[in-house]
């Protein structure tokens, strides 16, 4: 049986002899410790981020001038397909699950995840899936029908290879990994909270991971069903999607987006959770409207299941008013969250750390991306902008401006938890500003190009002077984003080599993960505080004042 409730070697008696005798490499390869697995998630996801980023640079280099320069059309199709697939399925979704792995058990005072071995299985499927996905190149052609793999294009071969089939298998593996991870997170959060850690005292990152896991659990199997149908159509002569055999192409779009729209919230809700941890700590205030934030998160999760067909407005097969209104409604809970964040900052004692700058980056860039999306929710606008660069601007402002900025905010914020050392603030700020400028140079012009009608997924374009100029601006911006990674990597490298340590709780944060040492011991906690609120560390530090205050009020001495 692969399912146990606790790691046998991690009993409270504290005998960790088995781990200590193992070679470090074996220890990492066989670990079931949620913290080590979390770190491996982060490292693996960052590797695929770099790979997919490289593909993006290739795309931008090809588009720097009209005409076809460096890549054939077939290669270009493979580039944007693999870029999108890798960024979404091997970078953003797993890296947020990686933060969840490391942080959630610590935030709720648990010893580990509920199913540690299943957790290790979830992780190890990811590098395997990445290898399978990219081995398409070895067979003469990687997947090439875009990350959405619409039939009938995806029913045709890519070059001479079996890239699309490998893409399907890789996504099935990643989906299984996600589902097992979702089961694990939900069980952990429901069953393993420390005494006193009621649901409404959980840190907001844990809340967002809970809602995200529910989305993963209920949406991912649906894309798995779509993937097996596509696999059957391609290899076993099935007729689900091929109109020539009585199939329906739009069926794929329905089942695909039934997952892939909730997946957008899987990619952004944990980011919102990270920002909701970072902003209160660096404004020295509790989050404004905790419960409103929780209900807004649940609301986004629930609405997320009723908007999938807004990706299919132009197919003419969906009920436009319904899906349009539901999509507009998503802006309401998101707006609630913006009020939460802004009111948290209001009159706060704001501390401009790198983590906080990235959180501000998230607020501003995600806001632009969200507004882009509200435009697209209107069918007449969508009919005009469908499949243009406007959509690409929207997705990148949401997933890069939103998720990636939040990932960096979380990384700078929790790095001292992972290692006991803070990252260098100077290099961190350089990283932030280079990325912020590069990001806007790359993706802001896409709005204009989209309005001018430049189509997505085409390696060539008409040599209008304004199109060429805007494309060159984007290419320069994308190179700046690539360059901005250098100070980040140098920062991590130098900080890891640094000998001296920072305080255990360098940001003076109040959630439970900062109660234990940095980095935490294998069993996470030697002790736990009494938990009376969502800020147990604050309560413990100010216990004297608070108890005096409580006594005074109860005895009526004031």
């Amino acid at each position: 049986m692969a399912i146990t409730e606790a790691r046998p070697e991690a009993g409270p008696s504290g005998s960790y002899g088995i781990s200590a005798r193992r070679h470090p490499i074996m220890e990492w390869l066989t670990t079931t410790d949620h913290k080590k697995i979390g770190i491996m998630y982060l490292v693996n996801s960052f590797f695929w981020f770099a790979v997919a980023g490289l593909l993006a640079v290739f795309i931008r280099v090809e588009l720097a001038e009209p005409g076809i320069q460096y890549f054939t059309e077939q290669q270009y199709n493979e580039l944007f397909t693999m870029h999108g697939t890798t960024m979404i399925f091997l970078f953003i979704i797993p890296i947020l699950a990686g933060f969840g792995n490391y942080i959630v058990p610590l935030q709720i005072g648990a010893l580990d995840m509920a199913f540690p071995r299943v957790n290790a299985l979830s992780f190890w499927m990811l590098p395997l899936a990445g290898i399978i996905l990219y081995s398409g190149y070895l067979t003469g052609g990687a997947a090439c029908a875009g990350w959405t793999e619409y039939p009938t294009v995806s029913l045709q071969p890519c070059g001479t290879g079996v890239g699309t089939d490998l893409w399907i298998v890789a996504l099935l593996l990643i989906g299984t990994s996600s589902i097992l991870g979702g089961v694990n997170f939900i069980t952990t959060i429901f069953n393993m909270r420390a005494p006193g850690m009621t649901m409404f005292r959980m840190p907001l990152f844990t809340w967002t991971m809970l809602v995200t896991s529910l989305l993963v659990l209920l949406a991912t199997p649906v894309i798995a069903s779509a993937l097996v149908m596509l696999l059957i159509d391609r290899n076993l002569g099935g007729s689900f999607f091929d109109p020539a055999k009585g199939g329906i192409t739009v069926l794929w779009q329905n089942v695909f987006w039934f997952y892939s729209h909730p997946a957008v919230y899987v990619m952004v809700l944990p980011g919102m959770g990270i920002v909701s941890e970072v902003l209160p700590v660096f404004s020295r205030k509790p989050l404004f409207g905790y419960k409103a934030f929780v209900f807004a998160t649940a609301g986004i999760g629930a609405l997320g299941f009723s908007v999938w067909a807004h990706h299919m407005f132009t197919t003419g097969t969906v009920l436009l008013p319904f899906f349009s209104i539901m999509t507009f409604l998503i802006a309401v809970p998101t707006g609630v969250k913006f009020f939460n964040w802004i009111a948290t900052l209001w009159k706060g004692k704001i501390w401009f750390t790198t983590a906080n700058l990235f959180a501000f980056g998230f607020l501003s860039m995600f806001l632009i991306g969200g507004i882009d999306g509200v435009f697209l929710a209107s069918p007449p606008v969508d009919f005009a902008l469908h499949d243009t660069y406007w959509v690409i601007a929207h997705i990148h402002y949401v997933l890069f401006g939103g998720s990636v900025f939040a990932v960096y905010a979380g990384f700078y914020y929790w790095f001292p938890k992972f290692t006991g050392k803070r990252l260098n603030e100077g290099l961190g700020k350089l990283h932030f500003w280079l990325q912020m400028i590069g990001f806007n140079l790359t993706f802001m012009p896409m709005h204009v190009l989209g309005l001018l009608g430049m189509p997505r997924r085409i390696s060539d374009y008409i040599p209008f002077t304004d199109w060429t100029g805007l494309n060159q601006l984007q290419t320069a911006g994308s190179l700046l984003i690539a360059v901005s990674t250098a100070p980040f990597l140098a920062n991590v490298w130098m900080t890891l080599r640094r000998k001296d340590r920072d305080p255990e709780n360098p940001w003076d944060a109040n959630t439970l993960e900062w109660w234990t040492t940095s980095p935490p011991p294998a069993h996470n906690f030697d002790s736990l505080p009494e938990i009376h609120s969502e800020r147990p560390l604050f309560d413990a530090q100010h216990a004297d004042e608070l108890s005096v205050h409580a006594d005074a009020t109860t005895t009526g001495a004031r």
Partner: protein
Amino acid sequence: MAVADATVRETPAGPGHERTGGISSSLLGMVLFIASEVMFFGGLFGAYFTLRTAAPEWPPPGTPELDKLYALGLTAVLVSSSVTMQLGVFAIRRNDQKWLVRWLVVTLVLGSLFLIGQGNEYHTLFTEGMTLRSGVFGSTFFTLTGFHGAHVFGGAVFILIVLLRARSGQFTARYHDTVEMASYYWHFVDVVWLGLVTTIYLLSQ
């Protein structure tokens, strides 16, 4: 809020903090996994209904007639295996290890019988010319019933493992979460079949 006493408790945190009551993590995990399986079959059923609604005629002309009586026989086998599984669960709740083993054996035999019966039906349909390739009906029929059959097989392997563990006396009235998990899964597989037999066999022709 009364924050009167924020002293540190010296006892280390246990994995589940030794809660009383509530659902055990293994069972909760199983329920969640089954929820995801329901959504998987939901996707396949959705595809079936979409294709069926769009088809000019259902079943498409030339489709061999499905044997409803045979399907009801298979249903009887699978439903009774669910009953015997539950009898095994009741047995171990009484701490009756002997009857747990017996009921698990009966369940496994019935499950295997179902799979053999399904194989036999596939064989008949193949000889009548219906395959995955033979159009919308064949694709949906074999995909839905095939994935269900694969789940029956998976459930049977699960029950076999539970049976081997039960024979060596690993379960008691207090510790038998794995038996409960296997029963949850087996009942789920049974319910999916009831959905399949209703939509594909009874409401089809």
